[in-house]
């Protein structure tokens, strides 16, 4: 396929042209209360073609990969680029070249999910969900399996000729208990790049089920907090969520160019000097956002977005790197063959410090320990609000009562500025999630435990 695509783009009239074959094989199983909620096997295969002409883009895709269909699709992309360029006000010379990737990249897969039949996967999901529902106080359960296998060939007129073979797996368990009609949920989820053994290396499905049950049981007796600005210790999952949602999106170059809060702030102090925030597609071979090459055929590199509190870099694709005079570091990603690459994060995290996680708590007179990220929202000005699954009150240096229905909000950069201690531990803990920005993307995030100031809110204040 790689050769076929190289030949196809040879004679293109574009200033830059790229062809990307992408075959995605996806399996999904969801069982809830003993019933199959969803089960599917989906194959998506095709070629996406992108052409740059006088600074404007044309894109076309086709599910047919015969020579004639590919030629027609390329012509469509060229036509769209030409027409778009006539309307574009500002033209550009070309794109940044970046570290051009060549060869073949394969995910480190320890026991591929392909070695297991759908029946085995269905049984695992069924059994875990059944186990959850048997426990005291648990009214209902849900369990989900999701696997994605990607094969890609990417060629472009800047010399990238690269293949990628990737496997990403996720497992999710939910247990619900009931308190006076209010449903209390306990969730455990995990997601990796890799195989079956990588996914369940730390915890088996049974153990995850038990933990979800315990959370749903423990939260039954939890109170809700009163709203206040206070000192909080964030666990690695919360750190990952804030790094990605509240900060990461504001440094994506397309958002920067459209006026996000970080525009024009390179070399300015935007966080406590204890903060080094990084995006790196190759940070960990099993992180959910592992991405050694991007869809513009650029090899992924470590990008220090914030170094010791100073904003250093934005996340760019070839085009925005040219405009902002930065380097593309592997952040141009397309979700499916029919999507064009856009600027995305991969694995976004804060570097560890030198405190022990216990020390962070011991030094607090009054505050909260937050763990388990739930849904929320963030804006281009970095203001955010997220739900927190479990919040423990900290009093005189000790973790005390458990609270539920908690939210955390504030300005992402104010939170980063308020960080006064960063722990030495580290983990990625967002690998089971997706990020949505016109298209979906598998991402991961994490970091160490850290201590900062934030606004804590409760659903029913002061219960």
């Amino acid at each position, binding site marked *: 396929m790689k050769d076929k695509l190289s030949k196809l783009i040879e004679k293109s009239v574009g200033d830059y042209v790229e062809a990307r074959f992408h075959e995605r094989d996806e399996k999904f199983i969801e069982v809830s209360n003993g019933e199959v909620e969803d089960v599917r096997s989906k194959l998506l295969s095709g070629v996406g073609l992108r052409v740059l002409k006088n600074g404007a883009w044309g894109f076309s895709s086709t599910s047919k990969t015969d020579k004639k269909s590919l030629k027609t699709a390329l012509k469509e992309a060229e036509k769209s680029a030409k027409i*778009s360029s006539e309307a574009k006000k500002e033209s550009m010379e070309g794109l940044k070249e970046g570290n051009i990737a060549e060869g073949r990249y394969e995910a480190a897969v320890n026991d591929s999910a392909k070695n297991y039949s759908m029946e085995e996967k269905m049984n695992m999901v*069924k059994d875990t969900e059944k186990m959850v529902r048997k426990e005291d106080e648990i009214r209902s359960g849900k369990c989900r399996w999701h696997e994605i296998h990607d094969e890609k060939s990417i060629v472009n007129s800047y010399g990238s000729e690269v293949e990628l073979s990737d496997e990403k797996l996720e497992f999710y368990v939910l247990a619900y208990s009931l308190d006076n009609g209010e449903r209390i949920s306990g969730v455990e989820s995990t997601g990796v790049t890799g195989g079956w053994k990588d996914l369940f290396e730390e915890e088996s499905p049974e153990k995850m089920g038990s933990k979800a049950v315990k959370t749903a049981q423990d939260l039954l007796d939890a109170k809700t907090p009163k709203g206040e600005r206070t000192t909080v210790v964030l666990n690695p999952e919360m750190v990952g969520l804030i790094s990605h949602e509240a900060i990461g999106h504001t440094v994506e170059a397309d958002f920067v160019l*459209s006026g996000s809060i970080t525009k024009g702030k390179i070399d300015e102090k935007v966080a406590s000097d204890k903060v080094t925030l990084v995006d790196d597609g190759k940070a960990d071979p099993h992180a959910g956002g592992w991405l050694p090459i991007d869809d513009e055929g650029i090899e992924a590199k470590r990008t220090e977005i914030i170094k010791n509190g100073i904003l250093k870099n934005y996340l760019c694709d070839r085009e925005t790197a040219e405009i902002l005079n930065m380097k593309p570091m592997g952040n141009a990603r397309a979700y499916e063959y029919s999507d064009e690459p856009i600027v995305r994060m991969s694995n976004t995290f804060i570097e560890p410090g030198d405190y022990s996680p216990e020390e962070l708590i011991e030094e607090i007179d009054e505050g909260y320990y937050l763990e388990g990220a739930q849904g929320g929202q963030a804006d281009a000005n970095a203001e955010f609000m997220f739900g927190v699954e479990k919040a423990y009150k900290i009093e005189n240096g000790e973790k005390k009562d458990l609270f539920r229905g908690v939210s955390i909000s504030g300005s992402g950069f104010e939170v980063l500025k308020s960080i006064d201690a960063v722990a030495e531990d580290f983990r990625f803990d967002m690998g089971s999630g997706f990020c949505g920005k016109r298209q979906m993307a598998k991402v991961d995030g994490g970091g160490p435990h850290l201590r900062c100031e934030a606004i804590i809110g409760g659903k029913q204040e002061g219960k």
Partner: protein
Amino acid sequence: MSEILSLGNTLVKRAKEKGADEAEIYMENEKIKEVLVENDQIKMGKSQVKEGVGIRVLIDDKIGFAAVNSFDKDSILPKIDEAISIARSSIKDENNLIPSPKKIEKISGIYDEEAKNFDISDALDHGKNMLKGAKDYDDRFQFSSGTFTSEITNRAIVNSKGIEEEEKFSKFTYDGLGMAVDGYEVSSFDVKRDGVYHIDEIDTEGLGRELAKNTVNSLGAKKGEKFVGTALFATDSLPIILYMGMIRPLNANRVQKGQSKFEGKVGEKITSSRLTVRDDSTTNEGLGCRSFDREGQPTPPIDVIKEGELKNYYHNSYTAKKAGKVSTGHASGDASEMPGIGPTNFVIEPGKKTVERLIEEIEKGILINRFSGNVDPVSGDLSGVVKGGHLIENGEKKYPVRETMISGNIYEMLNKISGLSKKVISRPLFFGGGIITPYIRIEDLSFTSE
């Protein structure tokens, strides 16, 4: 018989031969022309042809499903085998079924003959119009991103019970996102989506203008304050709240799983009697029109809430069988997924007052242009941030506010509706279907600010 129905029949036959008790083939073919706007400029033209086939089989009351993005038989046949193998390993459920044919009344007005001549250059003109509408209104508006999409979709379904249906529609949808920037001041984002079936109804310039107007008007925002007062939800703030707080809980699957506050409430008063809602797949004012659903069942208009009383849930064949009822025809989704449940057009009956009158009657409150936050799908607890909000005092719009959060419960809020506007808007829903809604005024809501 059309080519697509003939393919469907061949595939159904093949699935039966391979061991399926029953089989359903859902097919879609889309021709898409799209223009992307980014940072005040045309970014890209896109041209795509997409195909999709969803295969659902039933064996011994067990369901299997597989999908592929091609009408090519060589690609589809292995997926039939896979759907069968999935069904064999699945869980037996006597409510699983492939439904029988029912009389379909074909609706008109959803396909514009001119759409087949709609070219990428026409799409580009509409991208330019969005930008023009915004910039002509006020140059301080920054168009962060926008999309104009024209699509012609041909959908067809064939099953082993004798359903053979096909329908074509054209749709033009457009959306924009941006903010106003004045010196160092940056307003909140505003987001708008709109769509129509006919080329001559497209108003991309209007969408751009509205975006610019809302964001520029929210410049100079002052810090909000903590109080309990009236919320006037503008039409564009409502689709997401109503989707999360009303449309999802009406899904019979959620009701049957105990995940809906509306469980057991049919025939009971669940909202203020000012509220009347119907689901109407036939009104061309809405963007969720269709003659048949994802399972080939008819979708006649239904009452959802009548003067505050809950009348119906949304059913597909599975939930209807479980409840001992007939499907309301709300099976939703595309060819890549099993039929789910979703609305067609969620139509809220307008009130009698003008928006101005609704404002005049407010002692103290906030006009909410956009809501960014969450509604818990089960409890209905709502929390989020008001975007582009304006403080109202003694019947007058005073000034824009920022950093204002609202919290409450959607079901309690729906019981405190004190007025609806005459004016309504029609919007496409993000997850499929459409919504037609007036402004909704709600009393006793808690506003907080840091």
